[in-house]
């Protein structure tokens, strides 16, 4: 349950980051880490007793992808009906560019599986990653010491990361190899950007190896174990190890399998910041601002419906069921304000205390505080509902100060005044005080969602703070709009119901008690969840 919720939240954060990336594309988007016209290669050669397997990955950045889509008329989408045929064609076409020989004899490669993904690159423009598993049989070649040569003639002159690794199955003894056995880029998903890990430019490799007789027999008897996840490369090591000795000890020895090459989007997106200093296209067109605002508003609305702000939704319900349309509106405004202020505050704190506090560590504690506040509030309401007005009298004060608007007046006699009859400006009971409203709104908005914080921090990083603040206000406003709508809906549904069962004991007493109990429970759950996630974080750190 916790996992599901967290992942839901995570996906929302990603959605917002993605949107932010698109919105800021004209400022300083992210490019393919290898440059926007690069074509990167990866060949993972695996020597088996009786076959050789090549995991071949081609990662095309934005410009070559555009050229391919232009040439073929396809859409950069794995669901495009033409894509499957295109990828099959590519498997054959790229195979033509590969030459693999064993002891001077060319080997016939066969494409076993094909994969394609289109991860978004700069400004959300598509990039393309193709993955092929090629296999060639080594049967029929019986020299004791064999020599394999590999040569890749695809996109030779194009800039890119060009990596080859050679590994061997346990029964194969690798005598020498011209390329490492470990993978530095995790199959082109995590390009190292540190200085001493410059892009390899390997397009050719050779390896000599022997197959032990026992191993060969074994290889024939026992089929290679299936793997459930395609291997992702080893963590980058500063010094690549070269296969010199037996490959049995090579940590990256990957079991052979029919498993297709698993493709992933690049893990890092290197901002190409050098050029942002150069000529600062700092002006945003009005339509982009408008579009950004609309997207932020929509995301905020969706965000209100997510677990993170469930408490606020309940608060909205509560206010709606016990207050007036004006209350609902006010709650929305308070939430917007406190949410915005919370993000700004946390942003400021994060910026100034970045060295000491990891923002991720801050969220859970804010969650705990917020959850406990809500639980207390719920408990207080429960007492109020259950005991009648005694507890409420503790809060009775400031009579008349806001009497026109109906705030600050407190009469908690539930039996005397059915809540559903609360009408703005009427003399009937107002059960929601300004103070309660404030507490609900502030606690509801207080936990700034990481998504909003990410937007703010990116804005700071991009020197576009004003626009970032504007987006967060829009985001909060979207959130508030949903809350207000919920509140309003309940107010008017309540009015509708009130016409029928004004005197119903259910509505007068038990429903409020139930809802107060629910709020208490929810507050506790929120606090608990926050504590748990803090624990999870602590365990990871």
């Amino acid at each position: 349950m916790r996992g599901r919720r967290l992942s839901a939240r995570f996906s929302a954060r990603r959605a917002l980051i993605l949107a932010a990336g698109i919105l800021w594309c004209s400022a300083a988007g992210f490019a393919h880490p290898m440059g926007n016209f690069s074509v990167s290669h990866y060949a993972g050669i695996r020597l088996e007793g009786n076959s050789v397997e090549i995991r071949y990955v081609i990662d095309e950045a934005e410009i070559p992808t555009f050229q391919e889509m232009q040439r073929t008329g396809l859409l950069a989408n794995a669901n495009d009906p033409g894509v499957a045929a295109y990828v099959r064609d590519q498997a054959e076409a790229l195979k033509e560019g590969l030459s693999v020989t064993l002891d001077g004899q060319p080997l016939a490669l066969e494409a076993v599986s094909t994969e394609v993904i289109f991860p978004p690159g700069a400004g959300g423009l598509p990039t393309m990653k193709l993955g092929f598993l090629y296999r060639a049989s080594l049967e029929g070649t019986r020299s004791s010491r064999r020599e394999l040569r590999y040569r890749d003639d695809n996109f030779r002159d194009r800039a890119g990361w060009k990596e080859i690794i050679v590994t061997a199955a346990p029964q194969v003894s690798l005598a020498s190899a011209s390329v490492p056995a470990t993978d530095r880029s995790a199959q082109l998903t995590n390009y190292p950007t540190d200085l001493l890990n410059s892009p390899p430019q390997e397009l050719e490799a050779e390896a000599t190896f022997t197959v032990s007789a026992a191993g060969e027999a074994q290889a024939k008897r026992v089929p290679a174990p299936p793997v459930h996840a395609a291997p992702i490369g080893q963590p980058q090591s500063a010094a690549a190890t070269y296969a010199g000795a037996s490959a049995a000890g090579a940590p990256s020895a990957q079991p052979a399998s029919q498993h297709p090459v698993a493709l992933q989007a690049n893990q890092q997106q290197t901002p190409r910041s050098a050029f942002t200093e150069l000529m600062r296209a700092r002006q945003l067109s009005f339509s982009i601002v408008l579009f950004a605002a609309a997207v932020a508003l929509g995301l905020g609305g969706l965000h209100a419906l997510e677990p993170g702000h469930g408490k606020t939704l309940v608060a909205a319900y509560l206010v709606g069921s016990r207050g007036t349309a004006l209350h609902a509106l006010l709650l929305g405004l308070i939430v917007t304000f406190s949410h915005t202020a919370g993000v700004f505050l946390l942003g400021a704190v994060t910026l100034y205390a970045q060295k000491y506090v990891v923002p991720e560590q801050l969220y859970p504690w804010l969650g705990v505080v917020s959850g406990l506040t809500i639980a207390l509030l719920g408990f207080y309401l429960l007492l109020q509902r259950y005991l009648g007005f005694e507890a409420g009298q503790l809060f009775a004060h400031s009579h008349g100060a806001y009497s026109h608007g109906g705030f600050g007046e407190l009469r908690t006699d539930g039996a005397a005044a059915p809540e559903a009859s609360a009408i703005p400006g009427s003399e009937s009971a107002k059960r929601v005080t300004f103070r309660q409203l404030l507490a609900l709104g502030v606690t509801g908005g207080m936990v700034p969602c990481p998504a909003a914080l990410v937007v703010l921090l990116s804005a700071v990083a991009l020197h576009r703070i004003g626009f970032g603040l504007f987006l967060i206000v829009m985001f909060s406003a979207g959130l508030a709009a949903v809350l207000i709508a919920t509140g309003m809906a309940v107010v008017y549904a309540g009015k509708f119901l009130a016409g029928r069962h004004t005197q119903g004991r259910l509505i007068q007493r038990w429903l409020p008690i139930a809802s107060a109990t629910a709020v208490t429970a929810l507050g506790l759950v929120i606090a608990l969840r926050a504590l748990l996630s803090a624990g999870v974080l602590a365990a990871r750190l």
Partner: protein
Amino acid sequence: MIARLAITAMVFSLVASAGSLRAQTPAQQNSTDQAIQSLELHVKMYPQDFAGYDGLGAAFLQKGRETGDADYYERAKTALAKSLDLDSSDPAAYSAMTHMAVACMAEHRFRDALAWAQRALALGSGDPSPWAIAGDALADMGEYDAAAAAYANLENPLASEEEQRGLSFERESRLSSLELVAGHTQKALDLMRSAVHTAIQTRMSSENIAWSEYQLGEELFQAGDYAAAEKADRAALEEYPSYYRALGGLAKALAAQGRLDEAAEHYRKAIAVVPFPEYAAALGDVDSKLGRTEQAKKEYELVGFIGRLSEINQEIHNRDLAYFYADHDIKLDQALLLARKELEVRRDIYTWDVLAWALYKNNQLQEAADAIAHALQPGSADALIFFHAGMIQERLGNASMAKTFLQRALDLSPQFNVRHAESARAALAGLQALEAQSASAAPGEVSHAR
């Protein structure tokens, strides 16, 4: 005109000292890749060696030049910053500072480049090579006299003969560009030929030799000698196969000779290595001249796509994109915006020219005339600038000036541009027809006109 520096000598001395520790692949991995690998190992073993990081930075700069991949300039800057962290007060740090200036030039940060070059000179190492980059930065900022003065310092009578030859390469290749800007085409060609000779004689790296041959080809093209330009570019390709600059230059020279199919083929090859927007635009022009409008449309779309990416990544193609938009009458406001933006950092004659052309296309004729005057001011003999000047004057109603400029463009280089040479001829013919008309209307004028 990208900066040139004799970084290779340094790289190779370091390569030699670092030794080749890893088993070499059978591949013909190019020497720059080998240098990078060796230097990486070297700085791993001697992490406090500032010269090692400087050499690595220089090797990354060279790789960036060869591949056109800006990522290498980022890496170079990181390595050079590390070198300067380790030592920036020793006179020997001039080298890392000079390389830093080169990296800034590659990113079109001319002021920073000048500042780094000046810092390098201030260390008083005695090596005049930072003057080369200082001059390059000044030239791109349009300060041609100051650039010439800087290049004049590229001499060191105390240096070894080999170093002196290296310096003479640096000096001659750069002075050649300045002479070209000043309109002294023959002098420019002589200097460049001499530079090519020096590059070959001193066995510079393949890319350096190929660059000088390509540069000679560009100057020959500008002088209207397309066959000689073709020869120079082919020589460059022989030296350094699939060198994208030479492929582009060769394609241009072939197109000017009417060999459009071959031109298209070479533009495609250039794009397959580095898809610069100017190649895609030129290929589109060749394709449309061949009547392949579908194909041309695709190429123009590719230019537009690269333009969009440039907007995102703030890349360095502003001038090419501005020319493209203005030439094809699309996004004219964008063309003007890009040209103006470029002028903020780069004030050489070519930026004034693109600004003038974009202004002309946006019907801001008086401003266009002012801008083109800046482009013509040093006395440059550039057919494209003459063509632009002619078109602007025609629209302003100065028929005789327009005719002069158009005639000069066509005299200098009858096929200066696949797209524009015809327009220039048509405009000139129109002006002459108009003149003939008015001459027949007012016969008294004829004798005067002759």
